[in-house]
C-alpha cells in the first residue's frame, strides 16, 4: 500500500517535471520571424441569456475567418480562433483567458460581450501584455478611467449610442412631455439610462420622467410594470433591454395595447426584430448599436456586404444582427492593425506591443461605414436608428426613416468624462447637417 503511494507520487512528479521542461524548452519566437499561425482568442456567450448575441457572433467569426484564411490571411499567416464561453461566469472566464494566453501562446484576444467581463479582462490584458480588442461591450468608463496600452475598442460605447438615440427621438418627435424607462437591473440598464436622462435634460429640459422601473434581469413577467405604465400614460417609453427580457416586455406590452398609447424607443431592438416578428408593431424607434444593418441605406447593395449577408443567411438561417457586424469589425481591425504594424516594421512580423501601438489611430472598414480608433483606444462608430415598418418580403418589421448620426458628434472627446460632458450638450447638435436622414 505504502509503496504504491510513493511510487505513484514519483510517477506523477516525474511527469510534471517532464511537462515543465517541455514548457521552458519551447523556443521563444525570434523577433520578426513570421509565426506559423496567428492564434486569436475570442470570448463570446455560448450559454446564458446573452448567447442570443454570442452564438450568431461566433458563426460570423467562423465564416469571416474561413474566407479570410482562404484569401491568404495576414501576410500569409492564417488566423486560428480559440473560443471561450463567457457564460461560465467571471472567474472561469478569467481562468480560461489566462490559460489560452499563458499556455497556448495566444497574443490577441477579442473580449468581451458583457461590460462586466470587459472590466475583468482589461486590467489582466494590460498585465499580461496581450492585445485585447473589446468587440461588443458598451461601458464607456473603462477607457475613460485609465489609459490602456493593450486595450482598444472597435465599436462605439454607451455614450455614443445613447446620445444618438436621444438625437433621433428629438428629431422625429420633438414635442413629447413625459417619458418612462423600463431597463434591466444591471450595469448596462442603469448606466445607459443615466446617460440618456442627462442628455435629454441637457437638450430638452422640460421633459418629465414619470417612472423609472428596473425589473430584475431575466424577469419572466412585466404585468405589473405594464399596468403601472398604462396608468401613467407616458408619451415615450424607453427600454435598453435586450434578448429574452426585451422580447417578453414587447410581447406583453403589445398584448395589452401599451404600444398603441406610447411611443416606444428600443435602442437594441434590431437584434430582437426577426425573433419577435409580428409581435413588434410598426412605429417603434429601434437601433442597432452602430451603423450596421442588413438594409443599410448606403451599403445594402455593396457587393462585399451583400455577399456576406447572403452567406450568413445560408449558414444560420437568420439575418445578421449587430453583434455579427461588431465581430466582423473587430476581426477586420485586427487584420488591418497587423498589416499596418508590418508596414511600419519594414515588412517584418511585429511584436504584440507594435501591433497594439498600430491599433491606436487605426482607421478600418468592416461591413458598413469606416471606424476610427482614437488615441485613447475608443472606436468612433456612427449610429444608425430607424422606425419599424412592415415591408413585403420580410416576416418581421424592418427599419425605415433611417438616420445615421456621425460618431464624433455624439461621443465624449478624449480626456473628458462622460457624465460631465453630456450635460454640456447644446440643442444645436440636432441641427447639424452631418446627420444624414434617409426618407424611406
Amino acid at each position, binding site marked *: 500500500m505504502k509503496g504504491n503511494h510513493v511510487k505513484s507520487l514519483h510517477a506523477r512528479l516525474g511527469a510534471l517535471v517532464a511537462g515543465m521542461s517541455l514548457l521552458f524548452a519551447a523556443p521563444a519566437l525570434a523577433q520578426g520571424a513570421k509565426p506559423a499561425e496567428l492564434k486569436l482568442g475570442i470570448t463570446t456567450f*455560448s*450559454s*446564458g*441569456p446573452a*448567447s*442570443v448575441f454570442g*452564438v450568431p457572433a461566433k458563426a460570423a467569426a467562423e465564416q469571416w475567418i474561413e474566407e479570410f484564411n482562404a484569401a491568404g490571411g495576414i501576410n500569409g499567416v492564417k488566423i486560428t480562433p480559440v473560443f471561450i464561453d463567457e457564460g461560465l461566469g467571471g472567474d472561469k472566464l478569467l481562468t480560461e483567458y489566462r490559460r489560452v494566453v499563458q499556455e497556448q501562446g495566444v497574443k490577441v484576444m477579442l473580449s468581451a460581450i458583457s461590460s462586466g467581463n470587459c472590466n475583468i479582462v482589461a486590467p489582466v490584458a494590460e498585465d499580461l501584455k496581450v492585445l485585447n480588442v473589446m468587440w461588443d461591450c458598451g461601458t464607456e468608463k473603462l477607457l475613460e478611467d485609465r489609459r490602456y496600452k493593450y486595450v482598444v475598442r472597435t465599436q462605439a460605447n454607451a455614450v455614443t449610442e445613447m446620445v444618438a438615440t436621444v438625437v433621433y427621438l428629438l428629431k422625429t418627435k420633438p414635442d413629447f412631455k413625459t417619458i418612462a424607462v423600463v431597463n434591466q437591473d444591471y450595469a448596462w440598464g442603469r448606466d445607459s439610462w443615466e446617460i440618456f436622462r442627462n442628455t435629454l435634460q441637457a437638450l430638452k429640459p422640460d421633459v418629465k420622467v414619470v417612472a423609472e*422601473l*428596473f*425589473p*430584475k434581469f*431575466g424577469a*419572466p*413577467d412585466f*404585468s*405589473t*410594470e405594464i*399596468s*403601472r405604465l*398604462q*396608468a401613467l400614460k407616458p408619451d415615450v417609453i424607453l427600454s435598453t433591454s435586450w*434578448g*429574452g*427580457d426585451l*422580447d*417578453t416586455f414587447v*410581447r*406583453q406590452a403589445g*398584448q*395589452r*395595447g*401599451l404600444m398603441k398609447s406610447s411611443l416606444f424607443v428600443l435602442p437594441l431592438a434590431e437584434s430582437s426584430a426577426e*425573433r419577435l416578428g409580428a*409581435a413588434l408593431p410598426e412605429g417603434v424607434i429601434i437601433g442597432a448599436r452602430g451603423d450596421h444593418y442588413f438594409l443599410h441605406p448606403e451599403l445594402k447593395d455593396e457587393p462585399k456586404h451583400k455577399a456576406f449577408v447572403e452567406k450568413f443567411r445560408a449558414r444560420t438561417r437568420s439575418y445578421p444582427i449587430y453583434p455579427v457586424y461588431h465581430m466582423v469589425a473587430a476581426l477586420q481591425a485586427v487584420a488591418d492593425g497587423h498589416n499596418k504594424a508590418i508596414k511600419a516594421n519594414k515588412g517584418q512580423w511585429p511584436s504584440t506591443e507594435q501591433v497594439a501601438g498600430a491599433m491606436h489611430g487605426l482607421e478600418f472598414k468592416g461591413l458598413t461605414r469606416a471606424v476610427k480608433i482614437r488615441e485613447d483606444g475608443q472606436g468612433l462608430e456612427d449610429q444608425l436608428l430607424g422606425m419599424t415598418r412592415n415591408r413585403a418580403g420580410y416576416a418581421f418589421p424592418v427599419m425605415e426613416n433611417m438616420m445615421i448620426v456621425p460618431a464624433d458628434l455624439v461621443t465624449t472627446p478624449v480626456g473628458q468624462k462622460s457624465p460631465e460632458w453630456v450635460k454640456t450638450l447644446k440643442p444645436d447638435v440636432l441641427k447639424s447637417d452631418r446627420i444624414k436622414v434617409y426618407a424611406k
Partner: protein
Amino acid sequence: MSFELLMLAAADGFSYAGLLFLVSLGLTLIFGVQGILNVAHGSLYAFGGYTAATLAIWAAEKQAPTWVLLAALVLAALVVGVILGGILEIGLLRRVQDKDPVLQLLVTFAAFLIFEDLQRLIWGVSPYSSTEVVSRLGNFDIFGITYTAYQLLLIPAVAFGVYLGLLFALRRTRLGKQIIAVTHHREVATALGINARKIGLIAFIMGAFLGALGGALAAPTTSLVPGVGTDMIVLSFSVVATAGLGQITGALITALLIGLARSVAVYTVPELEVAVPYLIMVAVLLVRPNGLFTVAQARRI
C-alpha cells in the same frame, strides 16, 4: 397608495399567483407522498414551457382553432409530466429510496443540473415563445387599464380549477384516498394492501405534470430562455415552506399572498420586489417554524 392602485396591483398579482400556485402545488404533492423536496421541479417548469411553446407554434402555423392551442398547452404539460416525471421517479429516485434524505435531495439537484444543459441542447439559446393564444382570447379594460383575458381570467381559473379538482380527487376517489393513506404512513398503507410504489409513481407524475403545466401556461406570455426554471425552484420552495410542507390550501393562500405582495411592492418599494417572497418566508418561519398552515398531525395532504 390609493384603492384604485391596490386593485390594479391585485389584478396583476392574481395571474402571477396562479402560475406560482400550480408549480408549488406539484412540489408540495410530491413532498407529501414521497418525502422528497424535488429541486428538479424547476426543470419540469422549463421543459413544460418549451414543449408547450414548440407545440403551440406548430399549431398556430396550421391555423388551428383556439381550443386546440389551449389543448396543446395541456398536452405539452402531460407529455413532460409523464416522460420526465417517470424517468426521474423510476430511473433515479427509486434507486436512492433507502438512502439519507440529504442524498435524495442532492440527486434531484444533480438531475436539475443535467436537465439545464439538456434543455439548451434541445431548444438552443434563443428566446422561445408563442403568443398566438393570448391575442385570440382578447383584451378587456378595468379602470382604464387593458388586461389580457388569458392572464387575468384563464390562468387564475385554471389554477383554481386544478385546486378544486385535486381536493375532490383526494377526498372522493379511490386513488386519492390511497394517496392520502400513503402520505399518512407508507408502511401502514402497504400493510393495508396499497401498492405504495405505484401510488408514489402516480403522485410524482401528477406533481411533475403540475410543474410542467405552470411552465406551459406561462409560455404564451413570457419568453423562455436558458435558466428560466432556476428562479422558479426557489420561488416555489418559498411558497411550499411558508405554507407548510404538503399543505394544498396553504399553498394556494401563500401563493396569493406572495403574488399580491410582490405587485404591491412594484408600486411602492420596487427595490424589494425580488426579496418580498423570501422576507415573507423568513418572517413566517420565525413565528411558525413549520409553516403557516401545518397543524399538529401526521397527515400532510
